[in-house]
């Protein structure tokens, strides 16, 4: 695979699958204000996926975005495990959103310098939205971590569960060295370093802690097409109407 295609595919798939998960809260959010915020971030994420798949279509002769999003099989997806997990209760959803969007904001900061112009342009465009996503995650995390005993305990439990999975965000691509050498992307290792600093700072300020023992392979495999058992059922649901009639337009 072309290294840039591989990079864009994983970025698009992360956004698509997490946006889909966020949208599962639409109409069912724990409070109206969060229902609305989650729906709005879902649209942003799915919109990012659409824009990235459009780059694949226009720059690399890939199929149209709907075909990329709705007709690939599970093995062809390159999303990380963290985004595949079911929403669980709102604490897990929130902690995942916090961990993921900090990485996402830093990633696009790096990608603004990309030598691949369409990606650099896209990065500049999404920064504004991602800043809002991070702000939302931070402010709600803070309020709930410092809220009461139950909310604190819930966030800690979800952080203990989600933090190891977040390692999968930074799983190296098979073309890592080439992407770095060509200035397309500064690389997962640097990104993870920057991310960890941001996360540690905040978690400490909120009386939370990161789990000690880290299972070395936790959360890994997604970038190579090895997914959690949660992805296939998600895709079955996502594509059920689209696949129900061949060559139809909806």
């Amino acid at each position, binding site marked *: 695979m072309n290294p840039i295609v591989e990079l864009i595919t994983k970025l698009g798939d992360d956004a698509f699958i997490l946006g889909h998960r966020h*949208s599962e809260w639409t*109409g069912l959010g724990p409070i*109206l204000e969060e229902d609305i915020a989650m729906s709005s971030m879902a649209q942003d994420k799915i919109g990012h996926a659409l824009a990235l798949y459009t780059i694949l279509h226009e720059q690399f002769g890939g199929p149209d975005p709907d075909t990329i999003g*709705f007709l690939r099989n599970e093995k062809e997806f390159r999303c990380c495990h963290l985004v595949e997990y079911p929403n669980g209760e709102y604490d897990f959803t929130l902690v995942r959103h916090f961990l993921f969007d900090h990485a996402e904001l830093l990633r696009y900061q790096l990608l603004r310098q990309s030598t691949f112009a369409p990606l650099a342009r896209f990065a500049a465009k999404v920064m504004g939205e991602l800043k809002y996503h991070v702000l939302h995650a931070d402010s709600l995390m803070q309020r709930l971590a410092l809220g009461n005993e139950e909310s604190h305990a819930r966030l800690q439990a979800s952080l203990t569960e989600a933090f190891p999975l977040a390692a999968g965000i930074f799983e190296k691509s098979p073309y890592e060295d080439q992407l770095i050498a060509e200035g397309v992307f500064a690389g997962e290792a640097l990104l993870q370093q920057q991310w960890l600093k941001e996360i540690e700072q905040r978690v400490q300020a909120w009386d939370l802690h990161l789990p000690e023992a880290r299972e070395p392979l936790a959360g890994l495999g997604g970038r190579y097409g090895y997914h959690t058992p949660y992805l296939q059922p998600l895709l079955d649901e996502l594509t059920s109407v689209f696949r129900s009639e061949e060559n139809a337009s909806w």
Partner: protein
Amino acid sequence: MYGGGYVFCEPDVHGQPDDPERLAEFEARIDRGEKIEPQDWMPYEYRRQLIRLIEQHAHSEIMGALPEGAWITRAPGFKRKLALIAKVQDEVGHAQLLYSAAETLGKSRADMVNDLLSGKSKYSNVFNYPAKTWADVTVIGFLIDAAAIVNQVANSKGSYGPYCRALERICYEESFHLKQGYDAFVALATGTKRQREMLQDAINRWYRPIIHFFGPPDNESVHSKQLMRWKVKMASNDEMRNQFLDAYVPKVLELGLTFPDPELRKDPQTGRWHYGDPDWAEFYRVINGDGPCNAERLSARRLAEENGRWIRQAIMNPQQKFTIPFA
């Protein structure tokens, strides 16, 4: 979203009689077309009926998110998926706006939500019917939103300021829903044979709930005279229904689709639409809790409220070590 068929309260015979002088002054303001604001004097009955009306409207928005919301994860393709999330998000936003408007009359959001969950408060009947296929989503987005617009545009000319202002913004958003709904509806109507069949089937199932949407015929609606004088109720059920049928029946027919009612036709003399008996007994059964999805919808809403309890408690904790305005 929402609609008509509001259930107003029985007049409260135990209520305080209003000061006749103030009442006359109040009615004169309404006659002059002035808006009533929260701090203004208003008759006891005016406040009570308005709370009931706006609260039902708010509940309908939030309950209306459920049948369509269930299709977000299955919406076919990027365009439909993004439009549907945006639409349902708008509806939840409408609920938020309307709860705030109702709160200006003295009932808290928590009390309103409790009355919804206990079954004391009503919401629009249409949301107690199932959305069985993707075609149902297009019928809801086109025809139910169109019906809601007829109703909400009428209400936006009412006398209570906060409700009118909320409705102005809501109507603006509803017109996008209608446009997107129509677009998705036409895509099926002009699609494959199976898509057309799916759409016709959905229309057949939604026809009766749509006729019910504006509420019982005028000769069956009670005590609406005073409410119309006070500009709480702005148009009669039959007027709104006729306006809707007149605008939208032709749009469906011109796509080669049909309605499951051999009696549906426009009287060329009076310009009024005639329709077959839509079984009003069913309307009353559903509004009183015995529709195909009442229990399912309420339990979904109850679950969402339950799941959110720890968040509300943590946010409202008086011992909280840190507070910032909620984003």
